[in-house]
Structure formats: C-alpha cells, structure tokens
C-alpha cells in the first residue's frame, strides 16, 4: 500500500531512506564537477560502472577550447573507467535514458534537474547535484526523503490543437513554481490511457518547474508496449489505495493552447491573448519537446510553406534525427527554411547555437524562460510544438489551427 514513490523508495512519506540507485547519469556540464568531487573524495572507487552513464548533450560539439578540454578529460575518464558513454550527437541525457534504458520501478538519479522526465515510466527519477552524484559513483547509493504526493487526476482527452505541453504548462500555473516543493506528482485516472509515452515524458519533464522531486505515471499497457519496441520486458504497476496530501482534477478536454510568459514558467496565458506579438526566433527541441512526434507535428504544419522567422530545430537524440531523416521530416523542415542543430540541448541554456541578442524575443518549446537564460536581454516565451509551428510561419505569436 502506498503512493508509487513510497512503494519504490520503500518508506513512508517524510521518512529518510538510503536506497541503492538502479541508474545514475551525468552530462558534460555536471559530469565535470562530479568527476572533480569524486577525485577529491579520495577513494577513487567506482561502485558499479554498468549502471553509470555519461551523456554529452549540453554544449555539443564543444564551442571553445576550454569546453573542449573539460569534455576531453571527462570523455577519457568515462572510457577508461568503463562508464556507459554517449558522445556528442548521441542526444539529450533524459531522451537517451528514455529510449529503452529506464524501466518501471527503478530508482533513477540524474545530475540534471529535468531527470524527473523519466518518471513517465513509473520509475522514481529525480535530479541531484554533482557532489551527491560523486558519492553515488563511489557507493552506488544515496539518501532520499520519501516525498508526500499530489494526486493529479486526469480525465477526458485532448481536443482541438491542445497537446501535452499545454497540459504541462497549465498544471505548472495551477501549482505555481514552488507548489510541489519536496513533493511528488502522480498522474492517474482514465485520462492517462489516452497519452502516449512521448506525451507522458513531456508532462513529467515540467514537474520540477513546480518544485516537485518527481512526476510519475504508473506503468500500463502503453508503457509496456513502448518498452517492448525498444527490446525491453517490463511489468505493469497497479495503483493501490494511498494517501495524497492534495488532489487536483484536470480534464484534458478543457486544456487550450497556452504560453508561459517570461521570466516565470508559472505565468501562463491562452495563446489567444498574445496573438500578434512579433518574434525574432523560434526554437523547437529540448528534453521537453524534441522527440520524433514533436518534429513530425511541427513539419506537418510548416511543410510546403516557408517560416517567416529564424527557426532552429534540434532533435532530442540521434534516434530521433534518424527517424526524422528516414520519414522525410527533416527534408520538409529544411525546405520550409528551418535550421537543424546537432542532437542535444541546443540553445536552451544560452550557451551556444541560438543565443538571443539584447531585446530579442524567442518562442521556445523548452521548459524554462528565466531572465537572460538564452542570452542577456533576450526574452523567452514557452509554448507547444503546434503553437511554435503556426507562429514560425507568421513570424509572430499565432494560434495553432486544429489539424
């Protein structure tokens, strides 16, 4: 009996537990500090390299020689210590872990705040910092405070042009930026069966924007079939009677296309209210909305037309890029005037490949619109893929048409 977090962490809400970690991963950003902390801890011992992943995604390929040198050191370490390594072009850490690696019921930690994305599989997945990760490299375990859980009851199904991102931004605005701090979100109810894995990953991705430690779906037939296609065998998880500290009802048929206004993810308005706002850049990608279904949806809308503003599309992984090449999606995007980036985080964190200039406005499918995040003096509006596509064609914020 208990919430999914309580069952996986084997404790009751509020309790501190030590748990062996089933999978742990870092990227090229946090991995550098993790390696430094691990070396300083003195023992220079790796507990079990087969469960440790190093995935380069934040600044790929390296943008200058400082970055390149840091990446070189981490790459050499990962190889010589037999950690599971994904080099530049492999894709975003969370995406690769979602392509048949993370399984239901696992305890997963990533040295990145959006590690909560993987709760979509019914895993307990959460972000930690570099020094915590260094201790996990050494011991294979870490401590958790078992979170209280908010029950997010989903009913109905999406109508019109609404999509998972609109639901995610809507619940972030309902809860607020710290509405679920130290807590977990469980997405339950009949509405969940209508959501494919890509949607669930988008929905769980935004959990941390409410302060939540985890965002989770129970593994059901959708999960099992997705993992089977990736060559994995997994078992179903059935909800049990449990205690939620708060319950929220969300009818998917009420969700409309929305936008989060800078500089807060929880300041959310219907796209309708912002129609006509001029844009300097549209960015499609990230661990929120860089999956194949996102690229395909974007290309369906812009195919045969030409974007009216510079538009950067970054596939979330090599598998996504490969599928988009195979099906002609990439051709359609290029013909529509989009620029395609290396699989990875792209310009989301303002380091390279699409940094904004002073006074520029970007409509992005990412998950954060904090001040100066994509460049000093630039403003970030967050939307769904369909809204980004309709807006790219007009060069200004535009309501997506019902397809």
């Amino acid at each position, binding site marked *: 009996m208990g919430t999914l977090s309580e069952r996986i962490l084997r404790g009751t809400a509020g309790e*501190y537990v030590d748990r062996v970690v089933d999978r742990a991963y870092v990227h090229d*950003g*946090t991995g*550098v*500090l993790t390696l*430094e*902390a691990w070396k*300083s*801890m*003195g*023992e220079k011992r790796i507990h079990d390299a087969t469960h440790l992943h190093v995935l380069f995604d934040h*600044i790929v390929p390296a943008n*200058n020689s*400082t*970055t390149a040198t*840091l990446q070189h050191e981490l790459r050499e370490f990962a190889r010589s210590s037999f950690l599971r390594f994904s080099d530049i072009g492999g894709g975003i850490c969370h995406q690769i872990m979602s392509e048949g690696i993370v399984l239901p019921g696992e305890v997963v930690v990533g*040295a*990145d*705040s959006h590690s909560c994305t993987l709760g979509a599989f019914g895993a307990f997945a959460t*972000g*930690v*910092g*570099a*020094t*915590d990760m*260094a*201790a996990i490299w*050494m011991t294979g375990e870490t*401590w958790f405070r078992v979170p209280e859980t908010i029950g997010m009851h989903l009913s109905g199904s999406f109508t019109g042009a609404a999509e998972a991102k609109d639901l995610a931004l809507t619940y972030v605005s309902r809860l607020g*930026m*710290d509405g679920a*701090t*130290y807590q977990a979100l469980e997405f339950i109810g009949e509405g969940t069966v209508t959501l494919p894995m890509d949607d669930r990953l988008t929905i769980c991705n935004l959990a941390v924007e409410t*302060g939540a*430690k985890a965002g989770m779906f129970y593994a059901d037939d959708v999960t099992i079939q997705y993992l089977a296609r990736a060559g994995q065998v997994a078992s179903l998880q059935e909800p049990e009677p449990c205690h939620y500290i708060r319950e929220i009802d969300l009818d998917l048929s009420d969700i409309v296309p929305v936008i989060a206004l800078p500089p*807060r993810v929880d300041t959310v308005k219907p796209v309708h209210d912002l129609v006509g706002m001029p844009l300097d850049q549209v960015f499609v990608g990230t661990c929120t909305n860089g999956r194949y279904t996102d690229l395909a949806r974007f290309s369906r809308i812009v195919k045969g037309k030409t974007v009216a503003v510079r538009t950067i599309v970054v596939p979330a992984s090599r598998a996504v890029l490969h599928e988009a090449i195979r099906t002609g999606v990439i051709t359609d995007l290029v013909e529509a005037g989009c620029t395609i980036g290396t699989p990875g985080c792209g310009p989301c*964190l*303002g*380091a390279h490949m699409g940094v904004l200039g002073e006074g520029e406005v970007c409509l992005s499918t990412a998950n*954060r619109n*904090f*001040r*100066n*995040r994509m460049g*000093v003096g630039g403003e970030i509006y967050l939307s769904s893929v369909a809204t980004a596509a309709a807006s790219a064609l007009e060069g200004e914020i535009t309501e997506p048409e019902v397809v």
Partner: protein
Amino acid sequence: MQVKGRAVCVGADIDTDLVIAGRYLRTKDHSIWVAHVFEDLDPSLAGRMNGSVIIAGKNFGCGSSREQAAIAIREAGTVAVVAPSFARIFFRNAINVGLPLIECTLPCTEGSFVTFDLTEGWVETEGKKYTTPPLSKRMQEILAAGGLVNYWRTCR
C-alpha cells in the same frame, strides 16, 4: 556555534540561472563563478557577498541543478542563506558544499546584523530571535565536515 553576518536582501523564486548564468559554467575556475555571482539579478551584489547572510524569499535556488550556484555563494564569502523555503536540489547541493541554509521567514534590512546558531536552531536579526527547524542529523554532520567531499574523506 554562533555565526554573524550582514544581511543582503534578495527576492522570492531566485533561480540558479540568476545565481550564476549558464555562460559562466564551463570552467573549473571557481573564481569566475565568484566574480559573476548574481550578475543577472544585480551586478552590485558580488561586491557585498563577503561576510553576508543572504535573506531571500520563498523557493530560493529553483531551476537548474548546477552546483556552481551553491559553490559561488559559499566561495564569495556568504556565511548562510535564510529563506522560508528552498528548491530541493539546491538544498542538497548547498549542504554538500558546506553552505549552511536556514529555513525561516525573516524581515530584511540591507546591511543589518544577522546572528545564527545551527546546532541550537535559532536566528536573530533586528533585535528579534526566531526558532529554526533543525537539519537532519546527517546533514548536520556533512555541514560540520565542511561538505560531502570532506565528510567522505574524514568521517567514514
């Protein structure tokens, strides 16, 4: 043990991008983080960090898991951060790098003295004393060791 510092006031929901921007992350040179700490919030803050107690609004440290945020604040000379609540990854990171955090709602007058005692669980400013919730035993041990690296080197 009593520790004293001067108040530096910041607002609520301060994200880690504001503490240290993404454009300064790709280095192991901690002095770069110290030089640019809070630059996008208020460029004058970096000069007032040494010996400070940062008094913030709710949800301090939300957003990215970048540990450079906690390192920058500690190495700039801040002795503690006080806020009604902290984002959870920042909370762990701060303790792990030896930066004390105090969960408390405090009034803030820039430059006024703030005294606190982590073991006894109180903080005092502007003539008023507030009781603060104790950290877990393990977190106290990690802080006492000066962070998780030293904790592993010396305590285990």
